[in-house]
């Protein structure tokens, strides 16, 4: 039957195979309605951050005391032109929120990337090699977990000084433990499965077993936890900013804006409310996306269907 056009699927081109593989998870993700909403929110935030100068109606740093504490557009008298009002120095709140998304997202992704890769690496080593390597890494993690985070952050920032890069370093150092523990636990369960032994029995090297058999099986939970971590980091960055430990003013960050807004909550509620809303919406979006990712990447949920 159709012998002349018999095509073995293992002979598909690289592109076709790639599509076969990646098409699955993405399709599954988009079938998830809430995850789609999350994806859109996250995409919106990313667009904001990337195209901030194009989107922002004003310079976020420009002060003009004539327009101090102007209310949002719908509560303002005719002729005013600040959609979300202005702060105590007459800076446009909307523009500052748009530019603030840069710091939040940059800090969020950079610390997750940095802390995540550190945690992934250490977790893999601890789980796979066991013995003293495991002991050292896990005791280190325990020590760090027993330290109140804000105190730790305070110490490091006091030593290194505040700034974007230092903030990222602090948050990466904070984050690695979560990944390391999760990855270690997954590796511990996966390395006992017989296919790992089978791979060894056909002569595969340790490095290859780690990369080909263990890593792909722990990478899905890693992505999921990373997405939740981005959300957490954004909140932590905002709290640090609120405490004055984040990126120093005048750079607009959502945390700094919240902190500014607190003092004017009685007379100008919009200064603190809108950045707060921005945080809430972005974090919600990332969490929805993370939930969707968890379902889309978990072989246990999709292989059954």
């Amino acid at each position: 039957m159709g012998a002349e056009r018999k095509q073995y699927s293992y002979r598909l081109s690289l592109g076709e195979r790639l599509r076969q593989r990646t098409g699955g998870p993405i399709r599954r993700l988009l079938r998830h309605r809430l995850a789609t909403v999350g994806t859109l929110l996250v995409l919106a935030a990313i667009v904001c951050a990337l195209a901030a100068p194009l989107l922002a109606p004003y310079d976020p740093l420009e002060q003009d005391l004539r327009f101090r504490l102007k209310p949002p557009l719908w509560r303002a008298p005719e002729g005013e032109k600040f959609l979300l009002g202005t702060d105590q120095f007459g800076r446009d709140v909307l523009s500052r929120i748009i530019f603030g998304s840069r710091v939040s997202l940059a800090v969020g992704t950079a610390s997750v990337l940095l802390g995540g890769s550190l945690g992934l690496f250490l977790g893999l080593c601890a789980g796979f090699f066991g013995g003293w390597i495991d002991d050292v890494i896990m005791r280190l993690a325990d020590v760090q977990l027993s330290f109140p985070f804000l105190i730790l952050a305070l110490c490091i920032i006091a030593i290194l000084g505040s700034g974007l890069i230092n903030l990222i370093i602090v948050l990466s150092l904070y984050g690695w433990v979560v990944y390391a523990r999760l990855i270690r636990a997954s590796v511990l369960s996966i390395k006992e499965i017989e296919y790992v032994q089978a791979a060894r029995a056909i002569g595969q090297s340790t490095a290859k077993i780690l990369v080909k058999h263990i890593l792909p099986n722990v990478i899905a939970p890693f992505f999921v936890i990373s997405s939740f971590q981005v959300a957490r980091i954004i909140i932590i960055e905002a709290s640090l900013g609120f405490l004055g430990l984040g990126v120093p003013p005048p750079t607009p960050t959502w945390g700094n804006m919240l902190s500014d807004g607190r003092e004017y909550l009685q007379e100008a509620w919009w200064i603190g409310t809108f950045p707060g809303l921005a945080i809430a919406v972005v974090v919600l979006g990332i969490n929805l996306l993370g939930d969707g990712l968890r379902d889309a990447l978990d072989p246990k949920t999709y292989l059954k269907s």
Partner: protein
Amino acid sequence: MPLPVLRVQDLKTYFYTGAGVTRAVDQISYDIGRGEIVGLVGESGCGKTVSALSILQLIQSPPGRIVGGRIELEGRNLLDLGTREMESVRGDQISMIFQEPMSSLNPIFSIGEQVSESLRIHRGLSKRAALDQTVKMLELVGIPSPERRVSEYPHQMSGGMRQRVMIAMALSCQPKVLIADEPTTALDVTIQAQILELMLSLRQELNMAILLITHDLGVVAETTERVVVMYAGKVVEEATARTIFRSPLHPYTIGLLGSVPSLDNVTRERRGRERLQEIPGLVPSLDNLPAGCNFQPRCARAMDVCLGQEPDLKEIEAGHLVRCWLHA
């Protein structure tokens, strides 16, 4: 006996745990001739699997360690090899198939990718050449429409099919020795017979030796030429399969055989007389072995000397070895 291809000599594999030293494999020796099928028999926990894993040096370390002995593949001691050299032996010269076909294949790779891996490692084949060879291997192990099956994933196959895939994977480089660790235990009876038959026919075709680890004496009787009986980490009896079944000498072997229903037993049972015999007691814990002969607490014919001293493995007649004071 044909020239031994694999020779295990005084192998000792111990596990060092917090509770002390567990002698999982304690000075066992056996030979496997070229193209021969040897059965390694014993109850659960007697060290069968550990001895097999030791051959490939797949013992989890720590806590396990091979503390002594030699494992010779065609005269070359594998225990002297470095990590790299050992990797090149595994899957190429000696292969292994495992008990659980359901978990022996990685769910995230296709059948073809997994079977061809060995060819790519040891034969240096390109991806496509390896896959073409894999299709042939899958055909050899009796998988229908192999060119379609190569791109399928493990969850799309039944247990029997997966075990065939495992066999294809183990045999793809035509190893000299195949270690089959309870290859049929997880399969139902009809599939068991098919898999055993497949292994036997492939042995002829590829002229490889098989070490068949099992606790199923029926499987041993059907397939093996020689049998090594293990108890508590030691070899207690070794003989040709025929001798083991016709005239076993060690009380443990006799007990094992007595605990399996044979056709004779069934007819007798119809007459309402005899029940299946069991070996009283439990396999002793390996970190707390009884003094003297390890089997003595469960042995109906234990004597004074059994309590005090452990018997040696003695050759009673050519090729028939027993570790028992009754035959010392």
